């Protein structure tokens, strides 16, 4: 039994008749099959050197050990350098009396083996076992990551209130000091004024960080109002105008006229807009064009094949709205991709980022029942895409299956 989308099998065998038979049998069983006639072709399909792709293009590989040129063992070794057995299961196909080969392959990270001539029902059963195992593993990984993140959020929330109190009291004393000198040294010289000004800036900065921590710890309440998103975008731009001007960035707005009013918490979505716009500006130290675009989409018409998790969220929308912030900056390094939304993760120099901007952004979008993703553009720069339901988040009691996926 195959669940969800058909699993993708890469089948590697140098004998064309084997390929033909296996390909037909696997396709009949509902798999999507790609055949490679030797090790070199297999490696090509696997795109191991493509640094952009962190997920394998296949769900399972059936790999012949004995092949001319690059043999199965070598393909196995090279594949394992990128993908561990739980991410990309490999079943080795081997001649009957080659137990040494089997032991060697298993020690190199093969998940399983099958002897030739291949017994098709046995092969199908093994493939299914490994596909299921892999899916279970992925589901566990996601569940674990979600739990870890939830635990972290909770501890940050608990910490934030305590830290806010402990840090704000000394800040309060410093503030009183600055205010005192400003009051009593009214005729002070330029150096004194400058010093007081710097002290005030330092207090404001510390206060801002504390405030974003507190914000982060209690994002749960939303004040939902039907709002004009385009108006909100126009209102948010002046707040980042300084960042835009300082880098001579050209701002382009693509806001179609027939956009319906969206049910959102205006203050929180404005916070999201400012975060994303400021991040985009910070990535464009050498200028460029920053585009903000909104569009309408039909949730039911989404391509089911792609990115199943977010599609699940988005397909439940009643009316889809996509908000994009597209920059021409330095892009996002692959190694940062997984950590972007982690609290306290920052790629900015010390003192410039709190590491909370995107974590808060994601929390806010999650609360709206929406979805956010950050990705690198084809040519240059990165895009933030926010998917929202025009009608706002569903009530907690409301069925998530009001529009069941077809």
């Amino acid at each position: 039994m195959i669940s969800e989308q058909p699993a993708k099998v890469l089948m590697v065998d140098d004998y064309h008749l084997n390929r033909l038979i296996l390909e037909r049998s696997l396709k009949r069983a509902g798999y999507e099959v790609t055949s490679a006639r030797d090790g070199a072709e297999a490696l090509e399909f696997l795109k191991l050197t493509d640094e952009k792709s962190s997920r394998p293009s296949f769900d399972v590989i059936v790999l012949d050990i004995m092949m001319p040129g690059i043999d199965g063992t070598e393909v196995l070794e090279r594949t394992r350098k990128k993908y561990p057995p739980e991410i990309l299961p490999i079943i080795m196909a081997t001649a009957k009396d080659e137990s040494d080969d089997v032991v060697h392959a298993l020690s190199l990270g093969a998940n399983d083996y099958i002897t030739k001539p291949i017994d098709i029902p046995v092969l199908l059963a093994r493939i299914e076992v490994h596909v299921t195992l892999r899916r279970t593993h992925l589901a566990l990984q996601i569940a674990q990551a979600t739990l870890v993140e939830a635990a972290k959020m909770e501890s940050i929330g608990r910490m934030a209130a305590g830290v806010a109190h402990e840090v704000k009291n000394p800040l309060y004393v410093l503030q009183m000091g600055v205010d005192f000198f400003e009051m009593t040294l009214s005729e002070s010289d330029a150096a004194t004024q400058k010093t007081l000004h710097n002290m005030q800036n330092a207090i404001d900065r510390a206060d801002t960080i504390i405030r974003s921590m507190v914000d982060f710890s209690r994002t749960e309440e939303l004040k939902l109002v039907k709002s004009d998103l385009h108006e909100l975008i126009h209102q948010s731009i002046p707040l980042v105008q300084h960042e835009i001007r300082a880098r001579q960035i050209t701002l382009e707005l693509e806001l179609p006229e027939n956009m319906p009013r969206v049910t959102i918490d205006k203050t929180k979505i404005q916070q999201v807009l400012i975060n994303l716009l400021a991040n985009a500006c910070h990535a464009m130290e050498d200028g460029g064009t920053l585009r903000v675009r909104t569009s309408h989409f039909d949730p039911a018409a989404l391509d089911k094949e792609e990115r199943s998790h977010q599609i699940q969220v988005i397909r439940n929308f009643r009316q889809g709205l996509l908000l994009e912030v597209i920059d021409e900056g330095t892009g996002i390094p692959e190694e940062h991709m997984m950590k972007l939304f982690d609290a306290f993760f920052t790629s900015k120099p010390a003192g410039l980022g709190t590491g909370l901007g995107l974590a808060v952004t994601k929390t806010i979008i999650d609360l709206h029942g929406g979805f956010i993703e950050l990705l690198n553009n084809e040519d240059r720069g990165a895009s933030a895409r926010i998917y929202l339901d025009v009608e706002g988040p569903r009530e907690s009691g409301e069925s998530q299956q009001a529009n069941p996926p077809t």
Partner: protein
Amino acid sequence: MPETENKTRILLVDDEKNITDSLTVNLEATGRFVVKATNDPLKTVETALAFEPDVILLDVVMPKMDGGDVQRAVRAESRLKQIPIILVTALLSNEEVGDGSREAGGDYMLAKPVRLPVLVKLIDRLVTEGAS
């Protein structure tokens, strides 16, 4: 008539001496306030009865007795219940409380760190409202 009689009388309640000291210095430096401070929230009512303040400035988070408890104790005392209370909190931001006009159960809130001009303005307003 002694000079202090024209001045607004402020009672400060905060468990941190640093804070009450700084506030005292600042408020007195304006020349318009007489300030009394206690760092023990349990002594609020007793101190207020003796000092007869026009406004009480009260920290929200304190050990032993928090701002809410102190507020209730003050309100329970007939001779004190008319005195306006300003709650000072570290748990809200300046943007959220605005200039203190946000009322919480009939009282007023300011967020730490409070700027002196904001505080003075709110005190003036409360005293004027109380007198009218």
